[in-house]
């Protein structure tokens, strides 16, 4: 037993370090992309159509002669903002719903959790599709759609934690000492759920990245001329034979973005 604990700790801290390194590099690139790209990501250059990677074009050029690296930087920025906003919507509403239902229980909990189950049973992309078909495509609709789709999973996690903690004796003591419910929820219990919440936020972020990429790939996410890793991949697929670097580099960036956060989440769990 003892040795296993030590071993896994070592393993996890390695996860944490690698995750931190990958995530910081990706975050650096994303922030860089907001202020500077080597080329104008929308500028077409017919002489450089499908150019192979070189020193002047690190990842080569796409079918319109646009610099792939610059577009990847912009695309990651878009993906990041969408995923971030999605997670914010999901976490804020999820925490409030989960905390209140988990802490108070009762019929409200029953009703809200039934609704939650229904939404949860629905794959998030499908829910987003319903949303998109009702309100149309576009960045903001994607955020809203995915955000709503993510609420139940966060609510579930937070609720579970609150049910665990509300039965703890220290919460009963706090009640007896006259601490009001809201203070118990936000000051006495919520900080204790942070480790669990943080790693599920990272997993949620990853799911949001993957979902956004999938929707943009299908052409119902970010609309051109805005760059997005998903829509770039769908374009790249047509040139898979002549310019595999287009698809490979774009895909690699999604993988690295997701991998960094999932390693971080894994490392944090311990």
């Amino acid at each position, binding site marked *: *037993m*003892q*040795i*296993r604990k*030590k071993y896994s700790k070592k393993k996890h801290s390695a996860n944490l370090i690698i995750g931190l390194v990958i995530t910081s590099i990706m975050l650096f690139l994303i922030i860089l992309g907001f202020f500077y790209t080597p080329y104008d990501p929308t500028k077409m250059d017919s002489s450089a159509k499908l150019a192979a990677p070189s020193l002047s074009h690190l990842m080569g050029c796409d079918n319109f002669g646009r610099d792939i690296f610059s577009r990847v930087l912009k695309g990651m920025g878009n993906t990041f903002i969408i995923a971030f906003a999605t997670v914010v919507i999901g976490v804020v509403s999820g925490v409030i719903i989960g905390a209140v239902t988990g802490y108070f229980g009762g019929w409200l909990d029953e009703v809200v959790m039934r609704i939650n189950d229904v939404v949860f049973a629905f794959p998030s992309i499908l829910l987003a599709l319903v949303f998109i078909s009702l309100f149309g495509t576009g960045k903001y609709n994607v955020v809203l759609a995915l955000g709503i789709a993510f609420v139940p999973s966060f609510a579930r996690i937070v609720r579970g934690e609150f049910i665990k903690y509300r039965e703890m004796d220290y919460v009963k003591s706090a009640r007896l000492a006259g601490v009001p419910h809201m203070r118990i929820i936000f000051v006495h219990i919520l900080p204790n759920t942070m480790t669990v919440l943080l790693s599920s936020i990272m997993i949620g972020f990853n799911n949001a990245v993957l979902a956004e990429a999938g929707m943009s790939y299908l052409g119902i996410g970010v609309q051109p001329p805005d760059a997005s890793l998903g829509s770039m991949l769908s374009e790249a697929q047509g040139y898979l034979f002549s310019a595999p670097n287009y698809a490979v580099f774009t895909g690699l960036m999604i993988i690295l973005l997701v991998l960094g956060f999932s390693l971080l989440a894994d490392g944090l769990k311990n």
Partner: protein
Amino acid sequence: MSDILLEVKNLNIEFHDHDAPEHIVRNINMTLKYGEILGIVGESGSGKSMTAMAIAGLLRRHDVTTSGEIIFDKKELLSAKRSELRKIQGNDIGVIFQEPMTSLNPTKRIGWQVEESLKIHKPEISKAERYELVIESLKNVELDNPELIYKKYPHELSGGMRQRVMIAAAMICAPKLLIADEPTTALDVTIQLQIVKLLQRLNREQKTSILFISHDLSLVKSICGRILVMHDGEVVEEGAADEIFNNPRQEYTRELINAIPKLEKPKP
């Protein structure tokens, strides 16, 4: 010499995952005769459970290093091959644990779990005979309606019943030694009494030797003939129960005895 079932000589157990090796148990010597009940007493962290697990062969060999000898029924267990050890486990040595809640597999029926040792060690016994033996064994630990209990799952039984089931499972091959590692700690006092009486009866009727590990000195005194007091991985004192109680030679033993709440008001 022939009346000695278990002899432990210079047993050392240490963890080797820390930078400095950490001794959990140092230089333990003990003997257990056929038909005897030996008690090991100590507070948490005294190494009493580790000693018991070493005797039962349940220490993971790559977690800890052991040295010394454990001679059980003329066989040396510490250096024995795993396959040799497995032939003894469940057949000659039965073990019951502290938590009857978690010591039974939650997804298997009681009957299946009780007859498991039989299937492993006596595969020649037919299914019908095995069923009879299990029912017999369940009756033997004073469970009512054994046929019903046979089909139940652990979560459908109370703590005391589960511990009885554990005893039935440990006793089904009629082992020579039963190791009881804090078997009553997780139970209510009246249930504790029943389990202790049951163990005494099994010892009397089936001549099974019992190694009884507990933190509760008064409980150990009421069931064991001889007592071993452990502290920080070492045997502090050994002797007949009454003698240790009335005439403790070591300071630690005296402390332990004094800590038992007396029927008098303490003076602050």
